[in-house]
C-alpha cells in the first residue's frame, strides 16, 4: 500500500516495503504474547501451590467441544479471507459468520464453565492460588476472544451493508492474524491449564 506512493522511477523502480498493517499487527501480537507469557509463567509457577482446595483435578473438565470450536474457527476465517481474495463476497460472508458463531460458542462455553465453577464448586478468584491464576489466565484469553469477536462483528456489519469488497481482503487478512493468535494462545492455555496443570 505504502510502496505505491513512494515509487520513483529514477532509482529503484521495484522499491517494495512490507505492509504496514501486517508489521503493525505482528508487533501488537508480540506485545500480547509477552503479556500472556507472564500469566502462563505465573500459572505454571503456582501449579500445586494452593494451600486450600478446590484443586484443579477436582473441578476442571477438559473443554474438548469448546476447543474444537475455537480451533476450527481459524480454518473458517482462513477460508473466508481466501474467498474474498477470489472475489466471492457471498462465500466470504458465510465463512465470516461461521467464524463469529464458533467464537461465540467458545465464549458461551467458557461462561458455562465459570458458572459451574463459581456456583457449584465454590471456586472464585479469591478462593485460592489456583482460582486466582486460573481466572486470570483464562479470563485474559476470554477478554481477547471478546475483543476479536467485536472486531469480527464489525466486519460482519460492513458485509451486511455491502461495503466489503475484494480489495479489502488485505485488511481482513490482517484482522485474521489476530484471530489466529487468539486461537494459538488457547492451545497453550489448554495445554497448561487442562493437561499439565491438572
Amino acid at each position, binding site marked *: 500500500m*505504502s510502496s505505491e*506512493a*513512494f515509487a520513483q522511477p529514477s532509482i*529503484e523502480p521495484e522499491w517494495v516495503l512490507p505492509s504496514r498493517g501486517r508489521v503493525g499487527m505482528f508487533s501488537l501480537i*508480540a*506485545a500480547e504474547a509477552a503479556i500472556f507469557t507472564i500469566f502462563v509463567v505465573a500459572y505454571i509457577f*503456582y501449579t500445586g*501451590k494452593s494451600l486450600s482446595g478446590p484443586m484443579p483435578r477436582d473441578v476442571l473438565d477438559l473443554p474438548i467441544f469448546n476447543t474444537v470450536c475455537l480451533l476450527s474457527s481459524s480454518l473458517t476465517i482462513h477460508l473466508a479471507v481466501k474467498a474474498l481474495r477470489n472475489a466471492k463476497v457471498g462465500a466470504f460472508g458465510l465463512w465470516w459468520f461461521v467464524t463469529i458463531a464458533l467464537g461465540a460458542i467458545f465464549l458461551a462455553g467458557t461462561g458455562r464453565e465459570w458458572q459451574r465453577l463459581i456456583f457449584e464448586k465454590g471456586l472464585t*478468584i479469591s478462593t485460592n492460588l489456583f482460582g486466582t491464576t486460573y481466572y*486470570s489466565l483464562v479470563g485474559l484469553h476470554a477478554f481477547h476472544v471478546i475483543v476479536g469477536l467485536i472486531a469480527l462483528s464489525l466486519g460482519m456489519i460492513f458485509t451486511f451493508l455491502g461495503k466489503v469488497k475484494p480489495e479489502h481482503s488485505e485488511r481482513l487478512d490482517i484482522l485474521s492474524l489476530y484471530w489466529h493468535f487468539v486461537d494459538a494462545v488457547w492451545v497453550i492455555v489448554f495445554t497448561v491449564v487442562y493437561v499439565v496443570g491438572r
Partner: protein
Amino acid sequence: MASETLALDTIAQGTRPIADRLHAWVVTVDHKRLGILYIIYGLVFLVIGGIEATIIRIQLIVPHNHFVSPQVFNRMFTMHGTTMIFFVIMPILFGFGTYLIPLAIGTRDMAFPRLNAFSFWLTAFGGALLYFSFIGGNGLYGAGNAPDVGWFAYAPLTSRAFSPGHSTDFWTLGLLVSGFGSIGTAVNFVTTILCMRCPGMTLGKMPLLAWLNLIMGGMVILAISPLTAAQIMLSIDRYLGGHFFDTQAGGSAVLWMHFFWIFGHPEVYILVIPAFAFASEIIPVFSRKPIFGYPVMVAATICIGFISFSVWAHHMFTVGMSSYGNTFFTMTTMIIAVPTGIKIFNWIGTMWGGKIQFKAPMLFCIGFLFQFLIAGLTGIMLGASPFNWQLGNSYFVVAHFHYVIVGAILFTIFGAFYYWFPKMSGRMYSETLAKWHFWLFFIGFHLTFDFMHIPGILGMPRRIYTYEPGRGWEIWNLIVTVGVIFQIAGVLVFVFNVLRSLVKGGTAGNDPWDAWTLEWSTSSPPPEYNFAKIPAVRSRRPLWDIKHPEDPDWKYE
C-alpha cells in the same frame, strides 16, 4: 493525509486566534507536533521530579534533619523514581523518536498517525493519574497521599494491609495506562521504520538513529508488556482478592520481583539505546567524519537488546538465589558489557583523527562517553554477585544508576536538544549560554554523583530518611546536596536559553551543522508534509552525496 496537510498554509496559522491554535495542538496527528508535545510534557515532569529530588537531598544534607517527615520522604523517592523513568525520560525519548524518525527516513508521517496521538494522550493521562494521587490517594476519607512503596513497589508492601487507600492503585493504573501508550508508540516506531523508508534506504543505509529506535521499539514491545501483566496481577490482588503476591495464601513476593525486573532491566537499555542513537548522530557530525563501524554498531545494539532480557535477576542478588542463579546472572551481566564496550570504542574511533568542533551538543556527548564508561564500570562491579552482597541497596547503587540515567541518558538528551533545537524551532540557541549550562550541570553532576558512591561504600543504605551523626557520612551527603545547586543552576540556564532563543534567537537555516542525514534537507522547522518531494537515497549520508557530487559515499558503501 498528505493532501490535507499540503493545503494548510503555515503562515496563516500565526494569525489565527490562540484558542484555535491550541485546539490544533490537541487534535493534531502530525508526528512533529506530537513529538514536541512529548518533549514539553517530559520537561514539565523533569522539573517536578527535580523538585522531588531536591526535597530528598535537602532532607539528607545533615543528620537528624526535620525538613520533611519520614512519610513524605517515602512519597518523594517513590514519586521521584517513577516520574523520572516513566514520565520524563521515556516521553522525551519517544518525543525525539516521534519527531525525528519520519524525517530521518524520508517520509511524511508515522505509519499510524492516529495511534501516535492516542499513545501520547495515554501517556499524558497516565502521568496525570499518578499525580492525582496527591489529592485523591486516600479516597474519600482524608487528605492526599501519594504512593510511598518505592518505584519498584515490592510485595507485600503493596498489599491492601500495608498500603491502604488508593495511592498504590494510582501508581499501578498510571503505569498501566502509560504502558499501553508506550506499547502503541513502539508498534508505531517499528512499523514506520520497517515500512515507510524512502526509496533506496535499505536497512543497511538507514541512519543509526532509525536503527537504534527500531531495536528500542522491539524491546519496548517485549519488555513493557511484562510490567503491564504484573500491574494487572497487582490490581487483581488489591481489588478482587487475588493471591498472586500474597505469601499467606501460598503466593510469592519474589515472583513480583522477577516480573518487575524482567521489565526493569531491559527498560534501562530501552532508555539508553535512544541515547546511543543521539550520540551516534551527533558525534560524527561534530567530528566531521562518518560513524566508525556502522555495521558493528548495529550488531552490538542488537546483541545488547537480546542479552538485556537475560540479566534481570542481578537486581535480586541480595534477595537470595541459588548459586546457579547467581553465576548465570553474574555471567550475563558481564557479557552485556562487551557489546556496550564495542560501542564506546566506535564512538572514540569516530572522533579519532576528526576535526572535532566543541559545540554544546558535542560537549554533552563527550560528557556522556566518559560518564557512561564509569557507569558501566560500576555496573560491572555491582554485577559481580559477591560484591553486590556488600553494596546492594546502598547509596553506591543509587550513584551507579544515576550515573547511567543522568550522566549518560540525560546528558545525551541535552545534547540532542541543542542539536535538533534549530531544526524544531527554526531558531538558533545561544552557544555561550549552552556552554554555561554544560559546565554548571557537569560540575553539579560530578559533585552529586561522584561523591554519592562513597557513603554507599561506607554503608549508607538507600531510602533512609535520616541518619546518625558520626558515621563519616555527613561530609559526603553535604557535598552531594551542594552539587544539586549547580545542577539546578544549569537547568535554569537551559530553560532560559530555550525561552530566550524561541523569542530572540537568530534564524538557524536548514542545515546549521553541515550535517548529512535527511532531516537537515528540509526547512527549519519542517513543513507539515516534511518533504515536498519524497527523497531518494543511495548511501547512509544522502546530504553528503548532494553536497559532494564529485566524491559521493555510495561509491564506497
